[in-house]
Protein backbone atom coordinates (compact mmCIF):
# COMPACT_ATOMS: atom_id res chain seq x y z
CA UNK A 1 0.00 0.00 0.00
CA UNK A 2 1.62 3.26 -1.06
CA UNK A 3 1.47 6.17 1.31
CA UNK A 4 2.35 9.26 -0.73
CA UNK A 5 2.88 12.78 0.55
CA UNK A 6 4.21 15.94 -1.09
CA UNK A 7 7.89 15.78 -0.04
CA UNK A 8 6.61 15.08 3.51
CA UNK A 9 5.58 18.72 3.72
CA UNK A 10 2.66 19.54 6.04
CA UNK A 11 -0.83 19.60 4.57
CA UNK A 12 -2.25 21.94 7.21
CA UNK A 13 -1.13 25.23 8.64
CA UNK A 14 -0.08 24.93 12.24
CA UNK A 15 -1.67 27.06 14.92
CA UNK A 16 -0.22 30.54 15.38
CA UNK A 17 -1.32 30.68 19.02
CA UNK A 18 1.32 31.47 21.62
CA UNK A 19 1.75 30.21 25.22
CA UNK A 20 -1.06 32.59 26.19
CA UNK A 21 -3.78 30.32 24.77
CA UNK A 22 -3.03 27.11 26.73
CA UNK A 23 -2.41 29.35 29.75
CA UNK A 24 -5.88 30.77 29.16
CA UNK A 25 -7.41 27.26 29.03
CA UNK A 26 -6.03 26.77 32.54
CA UNK A 27 -6.98 30.17 33.96
CA UNK A 28 -10.41 30.13 32.33
CA UNK A 29 -11.03 26.62 33.64
CA UNK A 30 -10.02 27.66 37.15
CA UNK A 31 -12.25 30.74 37.07
CA UNK A 32 -15.15 28.80 35.56
CA UNK A 33 -15.13 25.98 38.08
CA UNK A 34 -14.77 28.51 40.92
CA UNK A 35 -17.93 30.29 39.74
CA UNK A 36 -19.87 27.01 39.62
CA UNK A 37 -18.76 26.15 43.14
CA UNK A 38 -19.64 29.65 44.34
CA UNK A 39 -23.14 29.33 42.87
CA UNK A 40 -23.61 25.98 44.62
CA UNK A 41 -22.23 27.22 47.94
CA UNK A 42 -24.58 30.20 47.70
CA UNK A 43 -27.37 27.74 48.51
CA UNK A 44 -25.89 27.20 51.98
CA UNK A 45 -25.96 29.84 54.67
CA UNK A 46 -23.11 28.79 56.98
CA UNK A 47 -20.22 31.20 57.50
CA UNK A 48 -17.72 28.75 56.03
CA UNK A 49 -19.83 28.48 52.91
CA UNK A 50 -20.18 32.24 52.66
CA UNK A 51 -16.42 32.66 52.98
CA UNK A 52 -16.04 30.06 50.24
CA UNK A 53 -18.52 31.89 48.02
CA UNK A 54 -16.58 35.12 48.40
CA UNK A 55 -13.19 33.55 47.73
CA UNK A 56 -14.49 31.66 44.68
CA UNK A 57 -16.02 34.83 43.29
CA UNK A 58 -12.71 36.64 43.65
CA UNK A 59 -11.04 33.77 41.77
CA UNK A 60 -13.76 34.04 39.13
CA UNK A 61 -13.50 37.80 38.70
CA UNK A 62 -9.70 37.91 38.63
CA UNK A 63 -9.55 34.79 36.47
CA UNK A 64 -11.97 36.23 33.93
CA UNK A 65 -9.92 39.43 33.80
CA UNK A 66 -6.65 37.58 33.34
CA UNK A 67 -8.33 35.37 30.71
CA UNK A 68 -9.43 38.39 28.71
CA UNK A 69 -5.90 39.82 28.99
CA UNK A 70 -4.29 36.61 27.71
CA UNK A 71 -6.71 36.36 24.80
CA UNK A 72 -6.25 39.98 23.77
CA UNK A 73 -2.48 39.64 24.07
CA UNK A 74 -2.56 36.73 21.62
CA UNK A 75 -4.55 38.54 18.92
CA UNK A 76 -2.81 39.67 15.76
CA UNK A 77 -4.69 42.96 16.14
CA UNK A 78 -5.26 43.40 19.90
CA UNK A 79 -7.01 46.77 19.50
CA UNK A 80 -9.82 45.03 17.62
CA UNK A 81 -10.69 42.59 20.43
CA UNK A 82 -14.22 43.94 20.70
CA UNK A 83 -14.91 42.66 17.16
CA UNK A 84 -15.39 39.30 18.90
CA UNK A 85 -18.76 40.58 20.10
CA UNK A 86 -19.73 42.00 16.72
CA UNK A 87 -21.73 38.90 15.77
CA UNK A 88 -23.45 35.98 17.46
CA UNK A 89 -22.32 32.89 15.60
CA UNK A 90 -23.04 29.40 16.96
CA UNK A 91 -20.86 27.76 14.27
CA UNK A 92 -17.83 29.42 15.85
CA UNK A 93 -16.96 28.06 19.31
CA UNK A 94 -14.56 30.98 19.66
CA UNK A 95 -17.41 33.44 19.20
CA UNK A 96 -19.55 31.50 21.69
CA UNK A 97 -16.58 31.55 24.06
CA UNK A 98 -16.20 35.31 23.78
CA UNK A 99 -19.84 35.70 24.83
CA UNK A 100 -19.43 33.17 27.65
CA UNK A 101 -16.31 34.93 28.95
CA UNK A 102 -17.96 38.34 28.73
CA UNK A 103 -21.02 36.98 30.55
CA UNK A 104 -18.95 35.28 33.23
CA UNK A 105 -16.90 38.42 33.82
CA UNK A 106 -19.93 40.71 34.05
CA UNK A 107 -22.09 38.49 36.26
CA UNK A 108 -19.28 37.48 38.62
CA UNK A 109 -18.34 41.12 39.10
CA UNK A 110 -22.00 41.92 39.79
CA UNK A 111 -22.21 39.09 42.31
CA UNK A 112 -19.02 40.19 44.05
CA UNK A 113 -20.09 43.83 44.31
CA UNK A 114 -23.71 43.22 45.31
CA UNK A 115 -23.39 39.90 47.14
CA UNK A 116 -23.21 41.47 50.60
CA UNK A 117 -25.92 44.08 50.03
CA UNK A 118 -29.39 43.68 51.41
CA UNK A 119 -32.75 44.26 49.75
CA UNK A 120 -33.26 44.49 46.01
CA UNK A 121 -29.56 44.97 45.23
CA UNK A 122 -28.75 41.89 47.29
CA UNK A 123 -31.32 39.88 45.35
CA UNK A 124 -29.75 41.10 42.12
CA UNK A 125 -26.33 40.07 43.40
CA UNK A 126 -27.68 36.63 44.25
CA UNK A 127 -29.16 36.28 40.76
CA UNK A 128 -25.80 37.37 39.31
CA UNK A 129 -24.14 34.65 41.37
CA UNK A 130 -26.32 31.88 39.96
CA UNK A 131 -25.96 33.22 36.43
CA UNK A 132 -22.20 33.41 36.88
CA UNK A 133 -22.32 29.73 37.85
CA UNK A 134 -23.95 28.87 34.53
CA UNK A 135 -21.47 30.98 32.57
CA UNK A 136 -18.67 29.46 34.66
CA UNK A 137 -19.69 25.92 33.67
CA UNK A 138 -19.53 27.07 30.06
CA UNK A 139 -16.18 28.77 30.53
CA UNK A 140 -14.60 25.65 32.01
CA UNK A 141 -15.78 23.42 29.16
CA UNK A 142 -16.23 25.34 25.88
CA UNK A 143 -12.46 25.45 25.32
CA UNK A 144 -12.66 21.72 24.68
CA UNK A 145 -15.13 22.38 21.85
CA UNK A 146 -12.92 25.23 20.62
CA UNK A 147 -9.96 22.89 20.25
CA UNK A 148 -12.04 20.01 18.85
CA UNK A 149 -13.70 22.20 16.19
CA UNK A 150 -10.61 22.26 13.96
CA UNK A 151 -9.13 20.44 10.98
CA UNK A 152 -6.18 19.29 13.12
CA UNK A 153 -6.48 15.48 13.22
CA UNK A 154 -5.53 14.80 16.85
CA UNK A 155 -7.76 17.61 18.13
CA UNK A 156 -10.67 16.56 15.95
CA UNK A 157 -10.44 12.93 17.02
CA UNK A 158 -10.32 13.96 20.69
CA UNK A 159 -13.67 15.70 20.36
CA UNK A 160 -15.78 13.21 22.32
CA UNK A 161 -13.85 13.71 25.54
CA UNK A 162 -11.86 16.92 25.29
CA UNK A 163 -14.57 19.12 26.89
CA UNK A 164 -15.05 16.56 29.69
CA UNK A 165 -11.27 16.39 30.18
CA UNK A 166 -11.05 20.17 30.41
CA UNK A 167 -13.99 20.20 32.84
CA UNK A 168 -12.25 17.64 35.04
CA UNK A 169 -8.97 19.52 34.85
CA UNK A 170 -10.76 22.75 35.78
CA UNK A 171 -12.17 21.09 38.91
CA UNK A 172 -8.85 19.54 39.88
CA UNK A 173 -7.00 22.83 39.43
CA UNK A 174 -9.43 24.63 41.75
CA UNK A 175 -9.02 21.87 44.34
CA UNK A 176 -5.24 22.17 44.02
CA UNK A 177 -5.27 25.95 44.41
CA UNK A 178 -7.28 25.58 47.65
CA UNK A 179 -4.95 22.88 48.98
CA UNK A 180 -1.91 25.00 48.30
CA UNK A 181 -3.04 28.53 49.12
CA UNK A 182 -6.04 28.51 51.46
CA UNK A 183 -5.46 28.37 55.22
CA UNK A 184 -9.12 27.97 56.19
CA UNK A 185 -9.56 24.23 56.90
CA UNK A 186 -13.36 24.41 56.69
CA UNK A 187 -13.25 25.86 53.20
CA UNK A 188 -10.64 23.32 52.14
CA UNK A 189 -12.89 20.60 53.48
CA UNK A 190 -15.75 21.71 51.26
CA UNK A 191 -13.56 21.94 48.15
CA UNK A 192 -11.75 18.65 48.82
CA UNK A 193 -14.41 16.40 47.27
CA UNK A 194 -14.75 18.73 44.27
CA UNK A 195 -11.01 18.63 43.60
CA UNK A 196 -10.58 14.91 44.14
CA UNK A 197 -13.45 14.06 41.79
CA UNK A 198 -11.74 16.35 39.27
CA UNK A 199 -8.39 14.60 39.57
CA UNK A 200 -9.90 11.13 39.19
CA UNK A 201 -11.98 12.25 36.19
CA UNK A 202 -8.98 14.02 34.64
CA UNK A 203 -6.91 10.85 34.75
CA UNK A 204 -9.71 8.62 33.45
CA UNK A 205 -10.79 11.00 30.67
CA UNK A 206 -7.18 11.44 29.53
CA UNK A 207 -6.62 7.70 29.16
CA UNK A 208 -9.88 7.13 27.26
CA UNK A 209 -9.35 10.20 25.06
CA UNK A 210 -5.87 9.05 24.04
CA UNK A 211 -7.32 5.65 23.13
CA UNK A 212 -10.11 7.20 21.04
CA UNK A 213 -7.72 9.53 19.22
CA UNK A 214 -5.45 6.57 18.47
CA UNK A 215 -8.04 4.48 16.64
CA UNK A 216 -6.15 5.72 13.58
CA UNK A 217 -2.59 5.13 14.83
CA UNK A 218 -1.04 8.09 13.07
CA UNK A 219 -3.60 10.50 14.56
CA UNK A 220 -2.89 9.60 18.19
CA UNK A 221 0.86 9.64 17.65
CA UNK A 222 1.52 13.05 19.29
CA UNK A 223 0.27 11.66 22.62
CA UNK A 224 2.96 8.98 22.54
CA UNK A 225 5.89 10.55 20.68
CA UNK A 226 8.01 13.65 20.76
CA UNK A 227 7.79 16.68 23.00
CA UNK A 228 3.99 16.65 23.11
CA UNK A 229 4.07 13.00 24.24
CA UNK A 230 6.51 13.89 26.99
CA UNK A 231 4.29 16.75 28.18
CA UNK A 232 1.20 14.54 28.05
CA UNK A 233 2.77 11.72 30.11
CA UNK A 234 4.32 14.20 32.56
CA UNK A 235 0.94 15.83 33.11
CA UNK A 236 -0.61 12.45 33.89
CA UNK A 237 2.20 11.49 36.26
CA UNK A 238 2.06 14.79 38.16
CA UNK A 239 -1.72 14.61 38.50
CA UNK A 240 -1.59 10.99 39.68
CA UNK A 241 1.21 11.84 42.13
CA UNK A 242 -0.96 14.53 43.69
CA UNK A 243 -3.26 11.74 44.92
CA UNK A 244 -0.39 9.94 46.64
CA UNK A 245 1.48 12.59 48.63
CA UNK A 246 0.39 13.69 52.11
CA UNK A 247 1.65 17.25 52.45
CA UNK A 248 -1.18 19.50 51.32
CA UNK A 249 1.03 22.13 49.71
CA UNK A 250 2.77 19.42 47.69
CA UNK A 251 -0.64 18.03 46.71
CA UNK A 252 -1.65 21.45 45.46
CA UNK A 253 1.59 22.13 43.60
CA UNK A 254 1.49 18.76 41.81
CA UNK A 255 -2.16 19.17 40.89
CA UNK A 256 -1.66 22.67 39.49
CA UNK A 257 1.42 21.59 37.54
CA UNK A 258 -0.40 18.55 36.14
CA UNK A 259 -3.42 20.57 35.07
CA UNK A 260 -1.33 23.33 33.49
CA UNK A 261 0.92 20.86 31.68
CA UNK A 262 -2.14 19.03 30.35
CA UNK A 263 -3.28 22.16 28.49
CA UNK A 264 0.19 22.71 27.01
CA UNK A 265 0.37 19.02 26.02
CA UNK A 266 -2.93 19.28 24.11
CA UNK A 267 -1.68 22.46 22.41
CA UNK A 268 1.65 20.90 21.40
CA UNK A 269 -0.05 17.70 20.23
CA UNK A 270 -2.10 19.79 17.81
CA UNK A 271 0.99 21.43 16.36
CA UNK A 272 2.70 18.06 15.91
CA UNK A 273 -0.44 16.70 14.26
CA UNK A 274 -0.71 19.65 11.85
CA UNK A 275 2.89 19.11 10.80
CA UNK A 276 2.23 15.46 9.93
CA UNK A 277 0.43 15.18 6.57
CA UNK A 278 -0.08 11.44 7.06
CA UNK A 279 -2.19 12.10 10.15
CA UNK A 280 -4.79 13.83 7.94
CA UNK A 281 -4.39 11.43 5.03
CA UNK A 282 -4.75 8.29 7.18
CA UNK A 283 -7.70 9.73 9.07
CA UNK A 284 -9.53 10.68 5.88
CA UNK A 285 -8.80 7.31 4.30
CA UNK A 286 -9.82 5.69 7.60
CA UNK A 287 -6.61 3.73 7.63
CA UNK A 288 -6.31 2.19 11.10
CA UNK A 289 -2.62 1.29 11.11
CA UNK A 290 0.38 2.88 9.48
CA UNK A 291 1.89 0.88 6.62
Amino acid at each position, binding site marked *: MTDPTYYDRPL*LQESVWTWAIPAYYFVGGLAGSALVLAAAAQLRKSRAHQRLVRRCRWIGVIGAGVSAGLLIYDLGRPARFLNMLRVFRPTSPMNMGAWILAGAGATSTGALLLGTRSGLLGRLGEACGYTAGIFGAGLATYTGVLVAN*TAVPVWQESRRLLPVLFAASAMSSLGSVFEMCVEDA*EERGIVKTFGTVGIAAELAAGIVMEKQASSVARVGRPFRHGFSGLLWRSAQILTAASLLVRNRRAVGALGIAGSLLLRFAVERAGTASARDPRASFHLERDRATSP
Partner: protein
Amino acid sequence: MAATKGFFTDTTLCIGCKACEVACKQWNQLPDDGFLFTGMSYDNTVHLGSSTWRHVAFIERPAPLHPQSEEAFSWLFSSDVCKHCARAGCLESCPTGAIIRNEFGAVYVQPDVCNGCGYCIVNCPFGVINRSEDDGRAWKCTLCYDRLKEDLIPACAKACPTESIQFGDLETLRTNAQARVEKLHTQGMPDAYLYGEDAASQPGTEGLHAFFLLLDKPEVYNLPPDPVVPTKKVKAAWISMAAGAAAIAAAALTSVFFDRGNGHDRSHLL
Protein backbone atom coordinates in the same frame (compact mmCIF):
# COMPACT_ATOMS: atom_id res chain seq x y z
CA MET B 1 -26.46 38.47 -6.79
CA ALA B 2 -24.03 37.68 -9.56
CA ALA B 3 -23.63 34.07 -10.71
CA THR B 4 -21.31 31.94 -8.62
CA LYS B 5 -17.79 32.19 -10.01
CA GLY B 6 -14.87 29.85 -9.57
CA PHE B 7 -11.71 28.26 -10.88
CA PHE B 8 -11.25 25.01 -12.72
CA THR B 9 -7.56 24.11 -12.59
CA ASP B 10 -6.74 21.48 -15.19
CA THR B 11 -3.40 20.13 -13.99
CA THR B 12 -2.79 18.23 -17.24
CA LEU B 13 -2.29 21.57 -18.97
CA CYS B 14 0.01 23.10 -16.34
CA ILE B 15 3.62 23.54 -17.50
CA GLY B 16 4.95 24.82 -14.15
CA CYS B 17 5.78 28.31 -15.42
CA LYS B 18 4.58 30.02 -12.19
CA ALA B 19 3.11 32.93 -14.15
CA CYS B 20 0.05 32.56 -11.88
CA GLU B 21 2.18 32.96 -8.75
CA VAL B 22 3.86 36.07 -10.15
CA ALA B 23 0.66 37.63 -11.48
CA CYS B 24 -1.05 37.07 -8.13
CA LYS B 25 1.81 38.63 -6.19
CA GLN B 26 1.94 41.58 -8.57
CA TRP B 27 -1.76 42.35 -8.69
CA ASN B 28 -2.38 41.87 -4.98
CA GLN B 29 0.90 43.57 -4.00
CA LEU B 30 1.88 40.65 -1.78
CA PRO B 31 5.25 40.71 -0.03
CA ASP B 32 7.94 38.16 -0.89
CA ASP B 33 8.31 35.02 1.23
CA GLY B 34 12.07 35.11 1.54
CA PHE B 35 14.33 33.75 -1.20
CA LEU B 36 14.82 30.23 0.10
CA PHE B 37 16.17 27.25 -1.79
CA THR B 38 14.31 24.14 -0.69
CA GLY B 39 16.03 21.58 -2.87
CA MET B 40 12.53 20.20 -3.40
CA SER B 41 12.28 19.85 -7.18
CA TYR B 42 11.62 23.33 -8.66
CA ASP B 43 9.30 24.31 -5.82
CA ASN B 44 10.73 27.05 -3.62
CA THR B 45 7.25 28.38 -2.81
CA VAL B 46 6.32 25.23 -0.84
CA HIS B 47 2.81 26.03 0.35
CA LEU B 48 -0.02 28.52 0.23
CA GLY B 49 0.06 31.13 2.98
CA SER B 50 -0.72 34.67 4.00
CA SER B 51 1.40 36.12 1.17
CA THR B 52 1.16 33.22 -1.30
CA TRP B 53 -2.24 32.76 -2.88
CA ARG B 54 -1.19 30.60 -5.82
CA HIS B 55 1.36 27.83 -5.44
CA VAL B 56 2.62 25.56 -8.20
CA ALA B 57 3.46 22.07 -6.98
CA PHE B 58 6.25 20.22 -8.81
CA ILE B 59 5.90 16.47 -8.57
CA GLU B 60 8.70 14.31 -9.96
CA ARG B 61 6.79 11.07 -10.11
CA PRO B 62 8.65 7.78 -10.39
CA ALA B 63 5.95 6.36 -12.66
CA PRO B 64 5.18 6.62 -16.36
CA LEU B 65 2.54 8.98 -17.70
CA HIS B 66 0.66 7.03 -20.35
CA PRO B 67 0.39 7.52 -23.23
CA GLN B 68 3.10 10.20 -23.33
CA SER B 69 5.98 8.00 -22.26
CA GLU B 70 6.76 4.51 -21.00
CA GLU B 71 9.74 5.73 -19.01
CA ALA B 72 9.30 5.29 -15.26
CA PHE B 73 9.27 9.03 -14.67
CA SER B 74 6.78 11.81 -15.21
CA TRP B 75 6.20 15.41 -14.26
CA LEU B 76 2.99 16.50 -12.59
CA PHE B 77 2.39 20.20 -12.07
CA SER B 78 -0.52 21.72 -10.25
CA SER B 79 -1.34 25.31 -9.40
CA ASP B 80 -2.95 25.25 -5.96
CA VAL B 81 -5.26 27.97 -4.65
CA CYS B 82 -7.92 28.63 -2.02
CA LYS B 83 -10.81 26.27 -2.79
CA HIS B 84 -13.60 28.73 -1.83
CA CYS B 85 -15.48 25.76 -0.31
CA ALA B 86 -19.29 25.69 -0.42
CA ARG B 87 -19.06 24.94 3.33
CA ALA B 88 -15.95 26.79 4.41
CA GLY B 89 -14.22 25.96 7.70
CA CYS B 90 -12.60 29.40 7.91
CA LEU B 91 -15.88 31.22 7.40
CA GLU B 92 -17.86 29.13 9.89
CA SER B 93 -15.19 29.41 12.57
CA CYS B 94 -14.53 33.15 12.21
CA PRO B 95 -15.61 34.73 15.52
CA THR B 96 -15.82 38.30 14.25
CA GLY B 97 -17.74 37.79 11.02
CA ALA B 98 -14.71 39.12 9.14
CA ILE B 99 -14.91 36.18 6.71
CA ILE B 100 -17.93 36.42 4.45
CA ARG B 101 -19.27 34.91 1.24
CA ASN B 102 -19.43 37.65 -1.33
CA GLU B 103 -21.76 38.17 -4.29
CA PHE B 104 -19.56 35.95 -6.49
CA GLY B 105 -19.91 33.05 -4.05
CA ALA B 106 -16.28 33.47 -3.02
CA VAL B 107 -15.01 33.29 0.57
CA TYR B 108 -13.57 36.70 1.38
CA VAL B 109 -11.71 38.03 4.45
CA GLN B 110 -12.61 41.63 5.23
CA PRO B 111 -9.27 43.12 6.26
CA ASP B 112 -10.89 45.96 8.18
CA VAL B 113 -12.73 43.53 10.48
CA CYS B 114 -10.23 40.69 11.03
CA ASN B 115 -8.60 40.90 14.46
CA GLY B 116 -6.06 38.15 13.88
CA CYS B 117 -7.40 35.57 16.33
CA GLY B 118 -5.96 32.77 14.21
CA TYR B 119 -8.93 30.41 14.51
CA CYS B 120 -9.54 30.18 10.74
CA ILE B 121 -5.99 28.88 10.32
CA VAL B 122 -6.64 25.65 12.23
CA ASN B 123 -10.10 25.31 10.69
CA CYS B 124 -9.05 25.06 7.05
CA PRO B 125 -8.79 21.38 6.03
CA PHE B 126 -6.57 22.43 3.10
CA GLY B 127 -4.07 24.52 5.08
CA VAL B 128 -4.71 27.59 2.91
CA ILE B 129 -5.30 30.61 5.12
CA ASN B 130 -2.61 32.02 7.41
CA ARG B 131 -1.86 35.08 9.48
CA SER B 132 0.58 37.68 8.24
CA GLU B 133 3.44 38.44 10.60
CA ASP B 134 3.46 41.91 9.06
CA ASP B 135 0.11 43.16 10.18
CA GLY B 136 -1.35 40.34 12.29
CA ARG B 137 -4.35 39.69 10.06
CA ALA B 138 -5.45 36.56 8.20
CA TRP B 139 -5.05 36.59 4.43
CA LYS B 140 -5.81 34.31 1.52
CA CYS B 141 -6.98 34.37 -2.12
CA THR B 142 -9.81 36.86 -2.64
CA LEU B 143 -10.74 35.43 -6.06
CA CYS B 144 -9.52 38.90 -7.13
CA TYR B 145 -12.64 40.50 -5.69
CA ASP B 146 -11.48 43.93 -6.86
CA ARG B 147 -10.96 42.72 -10.45
CA LEU B 148 -14.30 40.90 -10.54
CA LYS B 149 -16.01 44.13 -9.51
CA GLU B 150 -14.58 45.69 -12.67
CA ASP B 151 -15.52 42.72 -14.89
CA LEU B 152 -11.90 41.57 -15.11
CA ILE B 153 -10.95 37.94 -14.53
CA PRO B 154 -8.56 37.03 -11.69
CA ALA B 155 -4.91 37.81 -12.31
CA CYS B 156 -3.73 34.18 -12.19
CA ALA B 157 -6.26 32.99 -14.78
CA LYS B 158 -5.46 36.00 -16.97
CA ALA B 159 -1.73 35.24 -16.87
CA CYS B 160 -1.96 31.46 -17.36
CA PRO B 161 -0.49 30.78 -20.84
CA THR B 162 -1.99 27.28 -21.25
CA GLU B 163 -5.50 27.77 -19.86
CA SER B 164 -4.67 25.35 -17.09
CA ILE B 165 -6.39 27.89 -14.83
CA GLN B 166 -9.89 28.53 -16.12
CA PHE B 167 -12.18 31.09 -14.54
CA GLY B 168 -15.90 31.48 -15.06
CA ASP B 169 -19.40 30.59 -13.95
CA LEU B 170 -19.18 27.52 -11.76
CA GLU B 171 -21.89 25.69 -13.70
CA THR B 172 -20.12 26.22 -17.04
CA LEU B 173 -16.78 25.18 -15.55
CA ARG B 174 -18.30 21.95 -14.25
CA THR B 175 -19.71 21.08 -17.67
CA ASN B 176 -16.43 21.85 -19.40
CA ALA B 177 -14.43 19.92 -16.83
CA GLN B 178 -16.63 16.84 -17.23
CA ALA B 179 -16.16 16.97 -20.99
CA ARG B 180 -12.41 17.34 -20.54
CA VAL B 181 -12.22 14.26 -18.32
CA GLU B 182 -14.18 12.21 -20.84
CA LYS B 183 -11.91 13.40 -23.64
CA LEU B 184 -8.79 12.47 -21.68
CA HIS B 185 -10.25 9.03 -21.00
CA THR B 186 -10.76 8.42 -24.71
CA GLN B 187 -7.23 9.70 -25.38
CA GLY B 188 -5.71 7.00 -23.19
CA MET B 189 -5.49 8.72 -19.82
CA PRO B 190 -7.98 6.71 -17.76
CA ASP B 191 -6.57 8.05 -14.48
CA ALA B 192 -7.89 11.58 -15.07
CA TYR B 193 -10.61 12.58 -12.59
CA LEU B 194 -12.13 15.69 -11.05
CA TYR B 195 -11.37 16.64 -7.45
CA GLY B 196 -14.04 18.47 -5.46
CA GLU B 197 -16.20 19.54 -8.42
CA ASP B 198 -19.49 19.23 -6.53
CA ALA B 199 -21.17 18.20 -3.29
CA ALA B 200 -21.59 14.61 -4.44
CA SER B 201 -17.88 14.13 -5.06
CA GLN B 202 -16.78 15.89 -1.86
CA PRO B 203 -19.59 15.86 0.71
CA GLY B 204 -17.31 17.11 3.52
CA THR B 205 -17.03 20.55 1.94
CA GLU B 206 -20.23 20.31 -0.12
CA GLY B 207 -18.11 21.00 -3.17
CA LEU B 208 -15.33 23.41 -4.06
CA HIS B 209 -15.66 26.62 -6.05
CA ALA B 210 -12.07 26.05 -7.11
CA PHE B 211 -11.81 22.43 -8.22
CA PHE B 212 -9.14 20.43 -10.02
CA LEU B 213 -8.50 17.81 -12.64
CA LEU B 214 -5.90 15.38 -11.29
CA LEU B 215 -4.01 12.35 -12.61
CA ASP B 216 -2.94 10.75 -9.34
CA LYS B 217 -4.12 10.47 -5.75
CA PRO B 218 -4.90 13.80 -4.08
CA GLU B 219 -2.14 13.14 -1.51
CA VAL B 220 0.45 13.30 -4.31
CA TYR B 221 -0.53 16.95 -4.86
CA ASN B 222 -0.73 17.62 -1.11
CA LEU B 223 -4.54 17.72 -1.28
CA PRO B 224 -6.61 15.96 1.40
CA PRO B 225 -8.42 12.86 0.06
CA ASP B 226 -11.66 13.49 1.94
CA PRO B 227 -11.68 16.92 3.62
CA VAL B 228 -14.49 17.67 6.05
CA VAL B 229 -15.41 21.10 7.36
CA PRO B 230 -14.82 20.85 11.16
CA THR B 231 -18.33 21.92 12.13
CA LYS B 232 -19.69 18.77 10.49
CA LYS B 233 -18.01 16.64 13.14
CA VAL B 234 -18.31 18.86 16.18
CA LYS B 235 -21.73 17.88 17.51
CA ALA B 236 -20.08 15.23 19.70
CA ALA B 237 -17.95 17.94 21.30
CA TRP B 238 -20.97 20.12 22.18
CA ILE B 239 -22.64 17.08 23.77
CA SER B 240 -19.42 16.40 25.66
CA MET B 241 -19.39 20.04 26.81
CA ALA B 242 -22.93 19.69 28.17
CA ALA B 243 -21.88 16.53 30.02
CA GLY B 244 -18.79 18.26 31.39
CA ALA B 245 -20.76 21.28 32.57
CA ALA B 246 -23.35 19.05 34.24
CA ALA B 247 -20.56 17.07 35.91
CA ILE B 248 -19.00 20.22 37.39
CA ALA B 249 -22.38 21.34 38.70
CA ALA B 250 -23.09 17.91 40.20
CA ALA B 251 -19.66 17.76 41.83
CA ALA B 252 -20.09 21.29 43.21
CA LEU B 253 -23.50 20.52 44.72
CA THR B 254 -22.23 17.27 46.22
CA SER B 255 -19.22 19.01 47.75
CA VAL B 256 -21.32 21.81 49.19
CA PHE B 257 -24.00 19.60 50.72
CA PHE B 258 -21.82 16.71 51.87
CA ASP B 259 -18.62 18.46 52.84
CA ARG B 260 -15.90 16.53 54.61
CA GLY B 261 -14.75 19.49 56.65
CA ASN B 262 -16.88 19.87 59.73
CA GLY B 263 -19.67 17.47 58.91
CA HIS B 264 -23.03 19.18 58.89
CA ASP B 265 -21.94 22.62 59.80
CA ARG B 266 -22.85 24.15 63.09
CA SER B 267 -21.58 27.63 62.43
CA HIS B 268 -25.04 29.06 61.71
CA LEU B 269 -25.95 28.15 65.30
CA LEU B 270 -23.14 30.21 66.74
